[in-house]
């Protein structure tokens, strides 16, 4: 270990106007070391990294000392900053969808970086770009050089971003939630890649994440942050084995736990689908025969009993959400859908709209699924007021209060607006909106994947309570087996629209029959 650390923050604080976003942070990254900053959203971890590199918007104030390789970062000129960012310090952002320019090919963007920082041109740049893509273990490098960002999957894009970040062989790589937007199996691969690159190139790696357990295997030292303050810091091993702060313990424990309540023995059949499939027409090219339809969900059959939870598992693009939307007839489908005593697939118009009361859905994104213009009470009561016009305003208010109580929100938050709530609270509002119609089937489309682990855990417990109280059936969609295990009685594994296997939750997790299921299980750190 050298005397001066590669990157150091001392008494580092960030202010936005009057508010202090980060206070008195002390942090060192040595060469070849991985340091993780962990904390929930709003804890100031990204702000710290951005602030240290001078990337915060105007209006913010940074105090304290920050040094990189012996240089005082507080005194750099604009020119020196530009050389440093993308040169000595590489940066990877969370969102691989938006951090690549959609109008240029991958090759062009890589060559651009090389030209700007190393002055490489022509064949030399192309050769180096290929090398880099190979280094981040991307297949078919030649095709990839000519590919456009939209043709790549999320994981591939993130690999390209990593290739760009290491293009100039930085001494320090800052990765801000590099895996949050990715599938679980891909998350592991990306983290392993970062680890390997760190060793090979001898960089320091500053890893920012909200998931303490995810960084467990990769970090040498961990800094836990809460509300802008450093709660605990230390070598990863001691921190995990003997956490000092209560908050650290809470983060470590924030793994979905418990199991669903057992089903009553003779529970009646609520929903069943036979020969059920979803296809999308492809646009017909002029003067040529129309191409075969795209099969999003291949013919399958499924059953769901009253009070039961069926977990639907698969990576993104496997057709989970399509299946769910089509089952409640938000998308056109083929085959039979039986709901209670009705053929759901034959209903239409008014009859279908009336039936929708019993089939509710909660979406993944707690920010997008609530209208920002309506108050919470209006959002929750909207469906109720339409389906039950006979209710008087006081009765509606009472039902709203009941629904809020069901999801453990105070009754007086009805007149507030969605933006005043956190992600977890918003998701509760979305659940209340579904519950108020007294549905029998609730479709939960990744309801917890946008949330912090601790909030996720609370929400799962809430969902289990609600299920028992109202005798609800859930169709629970998730890519995270740890969450599904805590919720589902049975599991259906989907891949590319095909059912890989289907069966009892515990049995399937203990003895998976397909390699795909095994990979999913390996990736989701089941404890």
């Amino acid at each position, binding site marked *: 270990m050298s005397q001066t650390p590669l990157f150091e923050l001392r008494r580092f604080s*960030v202010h*936005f*106007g009057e*508010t202090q*976003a980060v206070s008195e942070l002390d942090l060192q990254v040595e060469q070849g070391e991985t340091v993780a900053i962990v904390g*929930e*959203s*709003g804890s*100031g*971890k*990204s*702000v710290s990294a951005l602030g240290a590199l001078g990337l915060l918007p105007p*209006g913010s104030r940074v105090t304290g000392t920050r040094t990189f390789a012996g240089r005082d970062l507080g005194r750099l000129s604009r020119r020196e900053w530009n050389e440093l960012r993308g040169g000595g310090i590489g940066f990877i952002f*969370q969102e691989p969808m938006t951090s690549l320019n959609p109008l240029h090919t991958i090759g062009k963007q890589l060559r651009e970086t090389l030209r700007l920082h190393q002055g490489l041109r022509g064949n030399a740049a192309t050769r180096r770009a290929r090398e880099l893509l190979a280094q981040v273990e991307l297949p078919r490098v030649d095709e990839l050089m000519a590919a456009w960002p939209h043709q790549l999957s999320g994981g591939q894009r993130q690999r390209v971003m990593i290739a760009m970040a290491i293009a100039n062989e930085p001494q320090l790589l800052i990765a*801000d939630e590099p895996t*949050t*937007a990715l599938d679980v199996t891909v998350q592991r691969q990306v983290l392993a890649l970062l680890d390997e690159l760190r060793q090979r190139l001898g960089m320091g790696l500053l890893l920012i994440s*909200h998931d303490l357990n995810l960084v467990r295997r990769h970090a040498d030292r961990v800094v836990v942050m809460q509300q*802008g303050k450093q709660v605990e810091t230390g070598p990863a091993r001691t921190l995990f084995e003997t956490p000092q702060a209560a908050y650290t313990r809470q983060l470590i424990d924030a793994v979905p736990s418990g199991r669903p309540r057992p089903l009553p023995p003779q529970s009646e059949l609520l929903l069943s689908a036979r020969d059920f499939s979803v296809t999308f027409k492809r646009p017909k090219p002029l003067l040529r025969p129309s191409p075969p339809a795209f099969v999003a969900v291949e013919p399958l059959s499924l059953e769901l009993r009253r009070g039961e939870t069926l977990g639907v598992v698969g990576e993104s693009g496997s057709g989970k959400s399509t299946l769910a939307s089509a089952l*409640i007839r*938000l998308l056109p489908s083929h085959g039979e859908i039986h709901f209670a005593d009705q053929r759901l697939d034959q209903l239409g118009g008014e009859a*279908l*709209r009336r*039936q*929708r009361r019993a*089939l*509710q*859905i909660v*979406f*993944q*994104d707690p*920010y*997008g*699924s609530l*209208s*920002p*213009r*309506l*108050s919470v*009470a*209006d959002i929750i*009561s*909207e*469906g109720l007021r*339409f*389906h039950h016009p006979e209710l008087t*305003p006081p009765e*509606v*208010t009472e039902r*709203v209060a009941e629904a809020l109580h069901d999801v453990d929100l105070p009754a007086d938050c009805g*007149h507030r*607006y969605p*933006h005043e709530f*956190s*992600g977890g609270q918003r998701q509760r509002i*979305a659940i209340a*909106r579904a519950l108020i119609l007294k549905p029998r089937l609730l479709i939960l489309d990744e309801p917890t*994947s*946008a*949330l912090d682990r601790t909030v996720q855990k609370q929400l799962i417990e809430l969902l289990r309570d609600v299920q028992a109280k109202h005798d609800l059936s859930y169709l629970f969609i998730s890519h995270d087996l740890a969450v599904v295990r805590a919720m589902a009685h049975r599991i259906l594994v989907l891949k590319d629209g095909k059912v890989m296997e289907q069966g009892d939750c515990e049995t399937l997790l203990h003895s998976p029959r397909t390699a795909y299921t095994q990979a999913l299980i390996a990736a989701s750190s089941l404890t």
Partner: protein
Amino acid sequence: MTPNRRQRLSPITRRRLQVFRRHGRAYWSLWLFGLLFAFSLAAELISNDKPIVMQYQGEWYVPMLVDYPETEFGGFLPTTADYRDPFVREQIERHGWMLWPPVPFSYQTLDRDIQGPVPSPPGSRHWLGTDDQGRDVFARVLYGFRLSVTFALALTAGSILLGVFIGGAQGYYGGKIDLFGQRLIEIWSGLPVLFLLIILASLVEPNIWWLLGIMLLFSWLGLVDIVRAEFLRARNLEYVKAARAMGLPSRLIMRRHVLPNAMVATLTFIPFLFTGAITTLTALDFLGFGLPPGSPSLGELVAQGKNNLQAPWLGITAFLSLSVMLSLLVFIGEGLRDAFDPRHIMTSTTAARPPLAATTQAQDSQP
């Protein structure tokens, strides 16, 4: 959910109002424009060739509102009294009094008492001079301003109704409706509007309703694209999907969830529709295909200014009144655009809003 809670403005609207108010130029422009328009709405009280009220032989008359025959005041003709006629005037003043507006000319009053040739230059009798028929320019500008603005208001309202309805239907239903609707609109918008207006205006006897109708045929086109795009985007929003899953009918979803999204773009577009309507009307009047002869119109004043270069007050007045009106509208439009721009709201309220750090961070957890 008490009624006063519901009437309260949503926080977004309040923040927008705040931004608009802080945008000094737009805020003052709105006030000034409102004041000018209110002023011109009361044109009859300010500039008229009839007294506002009068008393004659102990009885009250309101000539501004009611037409009285000349015989009423001791004249000989059974026609409407001309209060500017020396004889009538003398009669009334002998037996009572009259209260005249500050400018005793209406927009079509021919002042026959002018010494010298018309157009006569500005002076104490005619503040802005007269045009080549001896009509008071101030009166014509005042009435012309009112006509232009009301015309633009009506045209804008009509365009919004049509544009939002057609654009909304295309965007929400998509598919064939959208496909054919867009092709029709492409053809329709390929038509040379000004020539068509001229041809149509020469086929029919143009009055203000004809002009309004003809211009309405084309003015909604610009709005359709915006509204359609907003509807296309909004119908895939998760809260719209959630409303569909709740079983709400399309009309309710459109009104409550989709339309408010489109209204932002529409509102931002209004000032441009407005200025467009005013300039088109002025252009038609200038070319002589617009309002019937004698109507107070700014375009006609521009034409007079062009034909009477020896009387620069005509051209200068027309130029100033048009440019002031259009500039004010453009400033208001700028303010509206900024007020509805989410980025602007973020940066302009950074200092006043502590939880910025929280919002930046909150985005971390979104996939």
